């Protein structure tokens, strides 16, 4: 799938389609409200959330600023534990490594637990094209794979679908004959997947954190499927973004606590797995052949840029869960496997401005994401920085640019400002209805119309505040420019 799906569509087209999708829109609104309460409750019970955030930020910065050191330490320890560690600078390199592992193991089937990295590099498509069977075992991912749909959230990817639609789709695709009660659907999926687990030759999984001091990889899940992917197939592929590293088990503890509380609003998930190397002689389960693929795919470029702070991201989804724009346009509005605020920042970095259309403008810069982010990433500042770069690199249209250049001049010159406000006030006056409001009748006017198509605007006042103040000052008989110190 790679990062962008529906490539070639514009932001406006996607937004229109998503706003029309009443069900998805309402589902996301409801989900956000639930997340909001749950997250606030588990964070409110901690006396030191802000301290934890700052400690985590410092750890992430330390690792990212010395990434070569930590990657080497992780690789050394993972190798010592018996895993094969491969490095992949780009998605293509990672895919070649994966295909090599399949070939060496003479394998043609695999089960997968949820991994954003596998989606980022487009693994499923490549493996399927090579004739392999790839089975998603995370419930939501299994739904999306069967429905041939795209994820709309990084933690809960099928957020936009309802159980009726899921039951119908499983009926059509897999012969499911049960009700739309979630427990029934899950039971069906469980039986369906059990055979796949037992037959699979390779297990592919992601990694929430890679611990440098021990060479272990960890997995935070709620369904238990990750453990089966982890233990049943004899060959194991672990996809690790080079930005997933934590120094040691102590920092893992802090990161996991922040991740789980932010992501799902609970203290812990049902399953928390720490995996170190292959199964040893005499151990009853676990893969005997473990391949860890460390993937860069643009991350070190981001680290060297003004967007380095986004590399602290632990993919918890808290910024999506609070975002008032995501709330309405849902994940599909962004057209990227990384939606919401972190998605705008990451997608624009990884795919480049040519491909993302106006994505960085799908944000009101309200800063809710920034204050919700457990890694204290200044998301709204980074989104604005993308805009600054886009304008500087010529991505704004000439008409818009002219308008902003003019605005810059008018708003920095009193004489120009005086003329402009007077002319505009006179122009707006006849357009007003019930007093000061500009209503739908002005929807044809460029820029103003974008506003007044759906809500009223206020007309400019006849007398500006500054004009009133001048008179007021005279009445009060005080000297102008008072209050200035001697400097």
């Amino acid at each position, binding site marked *: 799938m790679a990062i962008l799906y529906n490539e070639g569509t514009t932001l406006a087209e996607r937004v229109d389609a998503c706003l029309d999708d009443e069900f998805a829109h309402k589902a996301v609104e409801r989900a956000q409200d639930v997340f909001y309460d749950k997250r606030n409750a588990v964070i409110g019970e901690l006396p030191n959330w802000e301290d934890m955030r700052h400690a985590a930020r410092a750890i992430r910065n330390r690792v990212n600023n010395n990434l070569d050191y930590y990657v080497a330490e992780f690789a050394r320890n993972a190798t010592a534990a018996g895993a094969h560690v491969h490095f992949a600078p780009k998605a293509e390199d990672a895919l070649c490594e994966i295909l090599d592992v399949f070939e060496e193991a003479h394998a043609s089937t695999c089960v997968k637990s949820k991994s954003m990295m596998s989606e980022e590099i487009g693994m499923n498509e490549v493996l399927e094209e090579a004739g392999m069977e790839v089975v998603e075992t995370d419930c939501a991912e299994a739904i999306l794979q069967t429905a041939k749909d795209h994820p709309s959230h990084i933690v809960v990817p099928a957020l936009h679908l309802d159980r009726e639609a899921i039951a119908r789709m499983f009926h059509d695709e897999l012969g499911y004959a049960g009700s739309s009660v979630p427990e029934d659907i899950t039971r069906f999926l469980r039986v369906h997947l059990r055979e796949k687990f037992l037959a699979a030759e390779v297990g592919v999984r992601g990694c929430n954190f890679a611990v440098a001091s021990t060479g272990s990889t960890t997995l935070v899940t709620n369904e238990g499927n990750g453990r089966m992917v982890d233990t049943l197939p004899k060959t194991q592929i672990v996809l690790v973004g080079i930005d997933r590293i934590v120094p040691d088990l102590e920092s893992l503890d802090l990161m996991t606590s922040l991740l789980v509380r932010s992501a799902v609003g609970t203290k812990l998930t049902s399953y928390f797995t720490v995996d170190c190397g292959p199964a040893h002689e005499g151990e009853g389960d676990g893969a005997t052949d473990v391949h860890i693929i460390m993937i860069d795919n643009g991350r070190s470029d981001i680290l060297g840029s003004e967007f380095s702070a986004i590399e602290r991201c632990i993919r918890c989804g808290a910024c999506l869960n609070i975002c008032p724009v995501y709330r309405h346009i849902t994940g599909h509005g962004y057209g990227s496997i990384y939606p919401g605020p972190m998605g705008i920042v990451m997608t624009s970095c990884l795919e480049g401005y040519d491909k993302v259309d106006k994505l960085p403008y799908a944000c*009101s810069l309200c800063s809710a994401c920034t*204050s919700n982010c457990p890694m204290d990433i200044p998301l709204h500042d980074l989104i604005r920085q993308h805009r600054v770069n886009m304008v500087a690199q010529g991505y704004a249209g000439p008409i818009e640019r002219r308008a902003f250049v003019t605005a810059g001049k008018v*708003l920095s010159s009193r004489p120009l400002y005086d003329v402009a*406000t007077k002319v505009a006030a006179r122009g707006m006056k006849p357009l007003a209805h019930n007093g000061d409001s500009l209503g739908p009748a002005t929807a044809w006017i460029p820029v103003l119309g*974008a506003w007044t198509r759906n809500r009223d605007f206020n007309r400019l*006042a006849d007398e500006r*505040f500054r004009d009133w103040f001048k008179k007021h000052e005279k009445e009060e008989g005080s000297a102008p420019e008072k209050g200035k110190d001697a400097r």
Partner: protein
Amino acid sequence: MQIAFFPGCLVDMFYPGIGIAAVHVLERLGCDITVPEKQICCGQPLLNSGYAPETMPIIEQMVNAYADYDCVVSLTGSCMFAIQHDYTPYLQDKPALLEKQQRLAGNIYEFSDFIYRVLGVTDASAVLGSKLEASATYHKSCHLTRLLGIEEAPINLLKSVDGIDYVEMAFAERCCGFGGTFSVKEPEISCEMVHEKAQTIIDTGADIAVFEDAPCLLNVQGELTRMRDEGETSREVRCMHLAEVLDNR
């Protein structure tokens, strides 16, 4: 106390009444107010749209207009935050201007915070004689609440007005969808957001919706008016700036 007042361009052009009310309130509290001739706009609409070099003349104008005052009061939280923080990265190669901006950043206060914390006025009814018989809800504007951390001052001042019956709205700190040029660059999204905000205000049953940032007021008032005109609601909710509520006697 001598202060330089920054109303913000939106108040200057669209809502002079809000600025006038603020001046009345501050004068009643003993402030000697000046409004520098040169001040116009903080430049956020340009900066937030990505036009950084184009914003430079505005930044320069703004900093020069206020740098020589020891106490500056800004009527809008988001303008104040821009002046205090957002300018900084763009002034790194202009040391003289940077120094002035840093001084200004230390001398600037937001309207409600200034009254509540600096002047120490916590009871508007007792000190200002503010009085308004109405049930009122309050929208927590984004930058004021989250970036400046000013939450207590406006709410407590509002609650202390004689006759005010305060009702909290759901998700009060959720963005109203204004976002400066966002409102016209992405009007479909912006309208969804303001519609939801207006609905939560209507749902409180309050007579007035109080704002501390005029841009949010402009946005939400426009939506409430349209919803009424189109018969989507029969409720008439009056939008007021906190300054207007405090000025009411």
